[in-house]
């Protein structure tokens, strides 16, 4: 794959065209465009190919993803998958009927394009949360929420053991205990103490759901991580780099968490009612989410996001990546903590206002 703005040399172009043609069962593939997407990983590139024949005959749009492991950050709040692992997860999700960018081919030979890579279909649509919640596109959001509920339930039908996903760690205890341990380990590496986060983590510890299942969870499932077309139809769930074995309700709680509603009023992802989302989930899984367990994972979602915001601010402060965007993440923590304190105030007699 070429670096940004670097022209593709004729030999690489030829090798890439040959690989793609063979993979797609065509006699010839012409590379029309290879350019940075500007979205997702910095190495992701738009790949437009014109196939002479075969099952994909004609012009096709793909995204080419480098399989080179991302730079490891010592100070991550949440572990991420390598691109190769992400590709395996994507294949498993696609096979289970989840709407994802279709995984097409994997090329492990660095001689073809300079680095190993995998290719997915390119989804042309909208992800920007400010646009997704536009009633002109999604109406009352009911159909979209139903589809999202159905799709995440399909993902949750994947359970361990699974030979294709044997690189995913199975939580040592139950998923909530694992989440608490992970957050505490991060906070202990952090330079400042965080009493509100400790309050929230202790609450999670004391209120953990009794029975927990282990399924394949997206773990970053939220508005902003799915693509819709111009009429509000779901065309793909994206953002798979945190996927792993976990509690299915973690995804439901994350989707509904206040911090992922982008200031909108709809409790399900800022786009509508929980009931439509839950009903979609129940149609496929056969079970409606338990509101109490979802509420638990909403608190956990705020704790997770607060730790991720602290890690992002650290990249500005100490990580040699000064940026206003990273810096402002540090100031997001206060409102995440406000939600944690509000959501865990039950049983307290002092007046916490109408927060």
């Amino acid at each position, binding site marked *: 794959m070429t670096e940004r703005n670097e022209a593709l040399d004729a030999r690489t172009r030829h090798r890439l065209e040959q690989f793609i043609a063979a993979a797609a069962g065509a006699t010839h593939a012409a590379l029309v465009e290879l350019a940075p997407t500007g979205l997702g990983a910095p190495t992701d590139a738009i790949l437009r190919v014109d196939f002479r024949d075969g099952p994909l005959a004609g012009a096709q749009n793909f995204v080419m993803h480098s399989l080179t492991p991302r730079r490891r950050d010592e100070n991550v709040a949440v572990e991420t998958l390598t691109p190769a692992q992400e590709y395996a997860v994507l294949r498993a999700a696609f096979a289970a009927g989840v709407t994802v960018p279709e995984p097409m081919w994997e090329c492990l030979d660095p001689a073809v394009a300079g680095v190993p890579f995998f290719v997915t279909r390119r989804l042309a649509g909208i992800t920007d949360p400010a646009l997704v919640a536009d009633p002109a596109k999604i109406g009352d959001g009911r159909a979209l929420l139903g589809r999202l509920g159905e799709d995440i339930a399909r993902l949750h039908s994947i359970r361990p053991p699974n030979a294709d996903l044997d690189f995913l760690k199975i939580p040592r205890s139950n998923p909530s205990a694992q989440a608490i341990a992970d957050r505490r380990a991060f906070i202990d590496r952090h330079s400042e*103490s965080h009493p509100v986060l*400790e*309050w929230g983590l*202790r609450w999670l510890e004391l209120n953990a759901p009794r029975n927990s299942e282990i399924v394949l969870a997206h773990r970053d499932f939220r508005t902003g991580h799915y693509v819709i077309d111009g009429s509000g139809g779901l065309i793909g769930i994206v953002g798979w780099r945190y996927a792993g074995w976990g509690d299915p309700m973690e995804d439901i709680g994350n989707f509904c968490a206040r911090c992922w509603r982008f200031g909108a009023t709809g409790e399900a992802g800022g786009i509508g009612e929980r009931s439509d989302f839950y009903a979609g989930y129940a149609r496929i899984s056969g079970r409606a989410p338990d509101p109490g367990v979802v509420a638990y994972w909403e608190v956990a979602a705020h704790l997770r996001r607060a730790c991720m915001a602290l890690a992002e601010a650290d990249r500005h402060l100490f990580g040699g990546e000064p940026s*206003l*965007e990273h810096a402002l993440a540090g100031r997001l923590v206060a409102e995440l903590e406000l939600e944690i304190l509000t959501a865990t105030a039950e049983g*307290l007699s002092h007046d916490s206002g109408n927060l």
Partner: protein
Amino acid sequence: MRDRPDAADLLDAACETFAEHLLPLIPDTHRAPAQRIAMAMAIAAREVRAGDEPLRRELAALAELYGESRPAADTREALLRELRRMNRRLAADLRAGLFDPSDPRRDRVHALLLSGTVQRVRETNPRELKARGQA
């Protein structure tokens, strides 16, 4: 003695000029960083205006919770040092379960954390407090 307007006034004026006269001219492609600049200046202005008073209130509440006499915090460095020390203690106690539901001080701890957090949100995103009916 510095001349006026002071730092908070200057930042307010800069924010207003930026939001009214420049932001509307910025193309969509550069809107996100421009909005971040406006947000950072607004947070800084509110923080400068609030000064150290919220930090002193937080320290006094922590000292009261732990029955300590008012800690010496004459300088800003001393104030921050004392706040770090006491927040570390509170964080460790919370993790150890000292303020679990059976503890009579639980209400007070929650109120203390909430009051400090509301103050921080007042500085970072007052609109969030308004949305929650706590402007």
